[in-house]
C-alpha cells in the first residue's frame, strides 16, 4: 500500500464516511498495477536477488570433498586467514587513498583547457582517446612500454637513472597498474569536468581577474567551490571505476603478481573459482566484496543526496 493511498484512507476515515470509489472499483482494476510491475519485479527477483541469495548461501557450503555440506563460517575464516585476500583488501584501501589523485588529474587538466591554454582544442580530444580503448589493449601497450627492456627503461638508463622493474617489483607494481588505469580512464572524468565548467558563472571569474587573483587563488577560491557537485560526482564514478573495472588490466599486466602484491578482490574471486576449483570460497569472497561495495554505494548515495540538498 502506497503512502498516498494510506493517507487517503486515513483522511476518509477521519471524515467519518467510507470511500465510495474504493468499494465499487473492480478487482481487475485493483490487480492491474501489480500485473504491470510484475515483469520488472520478477526479472529483478529471479536474475538479481535470487542468484545473490544463492551465492551467499553457497558461501556457507564446502568445496571439493565437503561439497554440498554446510560448513558455517569456515570459508570466511579461511578467507580472512589468507594473506593474499588480505593484500587484496589492503589494495582496495590503497585505491581509496589514491582516489584524490585520480580525481585531481582530470580536474586540473580540465581547468587548463577551460582557461584556454594554447592548443586546448587539441588536448580536449587527445585526452579522451584512451577512454575508448579496452583494458586489454591498454594493458598490452603498457606491458611493452614498462617491460624491463622496454622503451621507458631505455630512456631512464640513457638519462643515467637506472632501470626500474615497473611490473616486477612488488612495491611499485600496484602503483604502475593504478597509474595506467588513471591514464586510460581520466578522459571520461575530464568530459564531466568540462560539462561542469560550462555551468560556472563567468562573472565570478571575471570578478576574480579584476581583483587581481592569481591562478592558484582563482582555482582555490572560485573554481573548486563552484564545481563542488561535479567534483563529488567524479569522486563517486571514479571510485566505482577503480573497484570494478581493474580486472582486465591486472589480468594482462601483472596476473596479480609479483608475490600476489597486485591482487584485488575481483581477481582473487576469479582465481579461486577458475583456477583453484574453489567455488564456495569464491562465493564467500564475492559476498565480502558485495558488502564492501554496499558500504561504498550507501556512502555515495548519502554524499549525492547531501549535495542535491545544497541547491
Amino acid at each position, binding site marked *: 500500500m502506497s503512502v498516498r493511498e494510506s493517507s487517503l484512507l486515513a483522511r476518509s476515515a477521519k471524515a467519518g464516511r467510507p470511500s465510495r470509489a474504493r468499494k465499487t472499483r473492480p478487482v481487475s482494476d485493483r490487480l492491474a498495477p501489480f500485473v504491470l510491475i510484475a515483469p520488472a519485479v520478477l526479472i529483478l527477483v529471479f536474475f538479481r536477488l535470487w542468484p545473490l541469495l544463492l551465492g551467499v548461501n553457497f558461501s556457507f557450503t564446502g568445496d571439493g570433498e565437503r561439497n554440498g555440506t554446510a560448513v558455517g563460517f569456515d570459508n570466511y575464516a579461511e578467507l580472512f586467514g589468507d594473506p593474499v585476500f588480505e593484500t587484496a583488501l589492503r589494495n582496495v584501501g590503497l585505491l581509496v587513498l589514491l582516489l584524490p589523485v585520480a580525481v585531481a588529474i582530470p580536474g586540473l587538466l580540465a581547468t587548463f583547457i577551460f582557461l584556454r591554454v594554447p592548443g586546448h582544442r587539441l588536448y580536449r580530444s587527445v585526452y579522451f582517446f584512451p577512454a575508448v580503448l579496452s583494458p586489454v589493449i591498454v594493458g598490452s601497450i603498457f606491458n611493452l612500454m614498462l617491460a624491463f627492456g622496454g622503451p621507458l627503461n631505455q630512456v631512464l638508463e640513457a638519462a643515467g637513472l637506472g632501470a626500474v622493474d615497473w611490473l*616486477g617489483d612488488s612495491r611499485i607494481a600496484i602503483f604502475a597498474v593504478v597509474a595506467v588505469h588513471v591514464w586510460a580512464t581520466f578522459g571520461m572524468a575530464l568530459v564531466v569536468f568540462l560539462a561542469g565548467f560550462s555551468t560556472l558563472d563567468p562573472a565570478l571569474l571575471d570578478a576574480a581577474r579584476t581583483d587581481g587573483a592569481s591562478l592558484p587563488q582563482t582555482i582555490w577560491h572560485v573554481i573548486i567551490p563552484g564545481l563542488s557537485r561535479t567534483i563529488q560526482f567524479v569522486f563517486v564514478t571514479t571510485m566505482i571505476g577503480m573497484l570494478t573495472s581493474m580486472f582486465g588490466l591486472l589480468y594482462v599486466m601483472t596476473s596479480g603478481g609479483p608475490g600476489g602484491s597486485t591482487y584485488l578482490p575481483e581477481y582473487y574471486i576469479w582465481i579461486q573459482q577458475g583456477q583453484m576449483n574453489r567455488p564456495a570460497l*569464491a562465493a564467500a569472497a564475492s559476498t565480502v566484496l558485495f558488502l564492501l561495495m554496499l558500504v561504498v554505494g550507501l556512502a555515495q548515495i548519502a554524499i549525492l543526496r547531501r549535495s542535491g540538498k545544497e541547491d
Partner: protein
Amino acid sequence: MRQRAIWSVAIAATLALAGCGSATGTNESNGASGKLVVWDWKSGDKTAAGYVEKAKADFAKKHPGVTVEFVAQPFDQYYTLLGTAIQAGKGPDVMMFNGGGQIRDRVDALVPLDQYLAADKQRLAGWDAFTKAGKIYAGPVTLQGHPIYFNKAHYKKAGLDPSKPATTWSGFLTDCAAIAKMNGTTCFSLGNKEGVGIQFWLSGLGSGILTPAEYDDWIAGKRNWTSPNVKKVFQLWKEANDAGLNNKGGNSTTLFTDAFGIFDAGKASHMIGLMSDIGHWKEFNEFLGAENVGVMPAPVVTTGATPSLPFDGGIGYGVAKWTKDPAIAADLVRALTSSAALQSFYADAGAIVSDTTISTSNAGPAVATLISQLKTGKPALHVALSSKTQELMGRLSQQILEGTVSVDDALKQLADSDKA
C-alpha cells in the same frame, strides 16, 4: 524500518545456518544419445585438424550412429568454463585436461576409465599424470616434459664442445661464464611473471639435486620440505638470479611467451622448456635451426643424484560422470589416443605424443635425444604438487627473487600447504 531490520537479520541467519545445496551442483545425467560433445582447447588449431579428423574417423568405424561435436574453448578460460559446467552438473561428455593437479582436483566429475582403456596401457605412456588413488581418469594424448635446451651455436662460439655439455653444476657455471663472455648472453632465459618459472626450475634441475630415493619419495607423496637438497633447489633459484645467470626482470617477464622469445632470439643460452605444444624443440628448431638446438641432462649438484628427463602425461581426454553411456564416451577417448591420430598430431603439431610406437625420425637431433631419454625418465617434481601448492610456490618464488621472503620461510609455507 524495524520490521525491515528483523527481516534482513532473519534472512541472514537462515542462510548462515542452512548452507544448503552446493556450490558445485549435484550430478545429474545428461542425454548423450546419438551425440557426444567434446571440450578442449586444441581442436580449433590448424595443426590439430588432421588429428581430430583421424580420431573422428576411427570412432565412426565403431559407432557410426553417434555424432561427435568438438567445441574448442580458449585455454585461458578453459578451467573457468569447465568449473561452471561442473557446478551445473551438465556439460561436455568428453573433455581435455592437463595432467597433474588440474585433473586430480576435478576427478569428482569424472568416470574412472581403467576397465575401458586396459588394452592401451602398454602402447601409451604418461598414465601417472592422469591417475589419482590408483584409478585412471583420462587417456594421455601428449607427453609433457621439462628438458634443458641449449643453443649449440653459443657453445661453439665460446670454444666449448656442444656434444659434451657440462654434467656438474660447477662445470655448468664455468661454461655459462665463458659463453656469457663470448656471446654477451645470459645463461638462462627466465620468465616468472605467471609464477611458472619456478615449476620449470624445480622439475628441470630437480633430478640433479635430489637423490634418487628422495625423488621417488617426492613423487609418491612423501615430500620432505626440510631436507637440505629440497632447500638447495630454492637456494639455487635465488643464487642463480643474484649471480646474473637470468635475464633481468624475470618477475615481469612472461614464460609464455616472452621468455621463450628470448631464447628463440639467441639472447640466452639455456632454457628449461617443454616437450610439446609450445616452447619446445619444434619452435626452437624453427628459430635457431635444428642443428643448433641441443638437449642436456640436469647438471649434478648433489653427489649421488642421477639426472633423468622429467616428463608426464601432458594433455589427455577424460569422460564426464554425467555422460549417458560411459562406454561409448570411453571409446571416443580410445579413438583420440589411437596410433593413427597421434601420428598425425606429432607430425602436424610437433608434440611428443604418448604413443611410444610411432616413428619420430627426421625431426632433428633434439627430438632424438628426448625420445632416447624417455625410457629412463621420471615424473616431473612440480606436477606431483596440488594446484594450490603450485600457485603458492609461484607467488613465493617471486618473493624469493625480490628478497622479501627467505628460502626457509618459503619452504615452511610450502610444507604447510602441501600437508593441508
